[in-house]
């Protein structure tokens, strides 16, 4: 065993350039694989954040149709419901329509909103200030960092759905509970939106985009959802109630094709690097045919010769793989800074690291197998006759 390891190690350094290039290729491939897997997970960030005790009630036709606001009281009266809050997608334009300046804004029930979402950490003073300021807004930490928003700033938005210019005062900044919490959005008073709509477009006032329903017991989610939808059956606006997770997964399903493509491509990169490593090992084994025959002539078993090649292959891929994993973390940080608008949560998980390691190992073993089988089967006489 000791001999084997020593030989494997020495062999790697025989062709320094080749080994180095192969490892470099692995670093790039494992890094790309890790990033793509993280992208796929980032897609599910909204669903991962979902709580089992929150339901979403919205218009059954589709999300773009509102629900009358008076549904709020009727939902609250249903058994198992603890609290109901309204949330309207505002869709305002900050500065210009560029992708980087886009962020979600919601008009919500200010008095209970942050009680429903304990994953947002707020300071009591700021929360109180927000509740008292009709034009106040709560801004997420990440959003605040991106645009440099501070408490006391004014944010002006141009309404795309609700015309006009809307100004908000930053009352506070909420913090994430952990790295899976999205804090790239802004919340403001639904009352403020409604009041202005009453003046400008009375027909569009008094309506809710959707309701967030908190229930007392997560295991009764299905039952309560049905009870809510039954309440509004055959009304002007029939509702569709589902768990927050299902609601968020519905969004993911809309872009499922992209997620699928990214996932496939992440495995393509592993196949590409497999071709590279397999090629390296095939060349190496061919060059050393005479040497392997010599080893056999000296009495080493075919298994030893085979293990020599697989060992070298695995060692190269593992070294490259580990370097690739190490590089994933800083690169993911840079990626997040660059594409925070697209992926507010971009966090390399333990699962990803495990998959990276497994991929490197699998490539190493598979790439070494064929040349190792050939080398172990080579007839001594033939091998000795072979000239490198």
């Amino acid at each position: 065993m000791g001999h084997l390891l020593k030989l494997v190690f020495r062999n790697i350094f025989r062709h320094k350039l080749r080994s180095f290039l192969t490892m470099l290729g692995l670093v790039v491939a494992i890094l790309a694989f890790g990033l793509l897997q993280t992208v796929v997970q980032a897609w599910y960030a909204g669903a991962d954040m979902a709580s089992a005790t929150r339901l979403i009630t919205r218009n059954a036709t589709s999300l773009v149709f509102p629900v009358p606001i008076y549904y709020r009281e009727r939902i609250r009266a249903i058994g198992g419901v603890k609290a109901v809050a309204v949330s309207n997608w505002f869709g305002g334009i900050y500065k210009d329509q560029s992708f980087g300046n886009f962020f979600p804004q919601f008009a919500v029930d200010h008095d209970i909103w942050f009680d429903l979402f304990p994953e947002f950490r707020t300071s009591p003073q700021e929360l109180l200030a927000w509740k008292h300021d009709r034009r106040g807004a709560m801004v997420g930490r990440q959003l605040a960092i991106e645009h440099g928003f501070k408490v006391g700033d004014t944010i002006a938005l141009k309404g795309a759905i609700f015309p006009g210019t809307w100004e908000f005062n930053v009352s506070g900044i909420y913090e994430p509970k952990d790295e899976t919490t999205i804090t790239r959005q802004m919340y403001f008073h639904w009352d403020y939106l409604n009041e202005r709509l009453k003046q400008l477009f009375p027909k569009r006032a008094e309506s809710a985009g959707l309701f967030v329903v908190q229930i007392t017991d997560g295991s009764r989610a299905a039952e309560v959802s049905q009870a809510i939808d039954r309440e509004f059956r055959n009304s002007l606006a029939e509702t569709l109630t589902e768990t927050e997770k299902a609601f968020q997964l519905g969004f993911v399903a809309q872009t499922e094709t992209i997620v699928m493509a990214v996932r496939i491509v992440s495995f393509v990169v592993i196949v590409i690097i497999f071709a590279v490593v397999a090629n390296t090992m095939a060349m190496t084994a061919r060059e050393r045919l005479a040497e392997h025959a010599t080893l056999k002539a000296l009495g080493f078993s075919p298994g030893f010769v085979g293990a020599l090649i697989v060992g070298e292959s695995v060692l190269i891929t593992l070294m490259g793989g580990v370097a690739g994993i190490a590089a994933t973390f800083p690169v993911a940080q840079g990626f997040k800074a660059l594409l925070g608008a697209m992926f507010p949560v971009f966090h390399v998980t333990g699962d990803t690291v495990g998959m990276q390691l497994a991929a490197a190992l699998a490539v190493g073993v598979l790439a070494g197998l064929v040349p190792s089988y050939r080398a172990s089967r080579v007839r001594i006489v033939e091998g000795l006759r072979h000239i490198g």
Partner: protein
Amino acid sequence: MKIPLSYIVRNLWTRRVTTLLTAGGMGLVVFVFAAVLMLDAGLRRTLVGTGSYDNALLMRQGSQTEIQSILYRDQASLVETMPEVARSASGDALVSREIVALIAIPKRGSDKPANVVVRGVSPTGVGLRPQVHLTHGRMFRPGTSEIVAGSGVVDGFEGVELGVPLRFAGREWLIVGTFEGGKSGFDSEVWGDVEQMVQAFRRQTFSSMLVRLRQRDEFASFRDRIATDQRLTLEVKPEPVFYEDQSRSLSQFISILGVTLSAIFSIGAMIGAMITMYAAVANRTGEIGTLRALGFRRSSILAAFLAESVLLALLGGIVGLLLASFLQAFTVTTMNFQSFSQLAFGFDLTPRIVLITLAFSVAMGIVGGFLPSVRASRLEIVDALRAA
């Protein structure tokens, strides 16, 4: 004196396995590269093909999509009287007052609903879009709850078939026909009578208005007339420009993702080529010495190895393109971020993409093969011959 091409080709043939693995790796990179370009081209063709410069689209100022837009009846009547608007033989204005809404239908093969565009059009509206023609059944009759569905909706969604009713907005709508929109965005829509839909969706207003211009070049005067009329708070765009704006963020997303991936993957493939070529140089040191002794110049040796690398890459490029060309049989349905609705589009292999892809693979060959070729050309005759 130049080294003949047949010599280079035979070299590649001799090391079949290595050639195959290296070219295979490069082929996969080229496949990903070409697939992304084809997808982007398909998306552009779909959305740009959706409009005609003979038509102008009017929406409320500041709204980015038809869904957000509101257009009042009196505004529509006013626009119809403008001199730039084309008229039929009987003097009717060739305009279509339209309502655009989203409904949620389950995607085929999953129970997750996705958003589909429902468009209510005026009787003249169908004629304003000559690329749309019926494939089965007949057109909806004005004044009835009949609808026709685009081919993308029929193929991609559950329960959308000729003769089957579709339930939305509190009514059953009978699908009396299916239409083909010439690979435009209309393929992903459901059409019905606008007045019926305005009632069913309980609105008093339209979403947008499509106007056939008397003459294409009168667009500027039409736009100015609308801008100066205080009663109209409308924005007007040539139809193709509107649809191009709609595709911008999805197109941007696809190209950014694709270019990044191709760049990272090509590093891996170039390293593969480099390893192969370095090994080729090392194995053929004696041969190189002989060639030099025969009178071939250093530059010829450099050219020969570079040509071998380029040939290798070109082989990979052709394999990758062949693979990618099969993608043309597939259709991708995903959510357009801007319009919030599903859009079906295909992979489009244009001559331009073939050229770009081949150029990309040649570039990979040159970059990967350059250093090894330089090493080959630098070998001293005596040393090289001794190595053999």
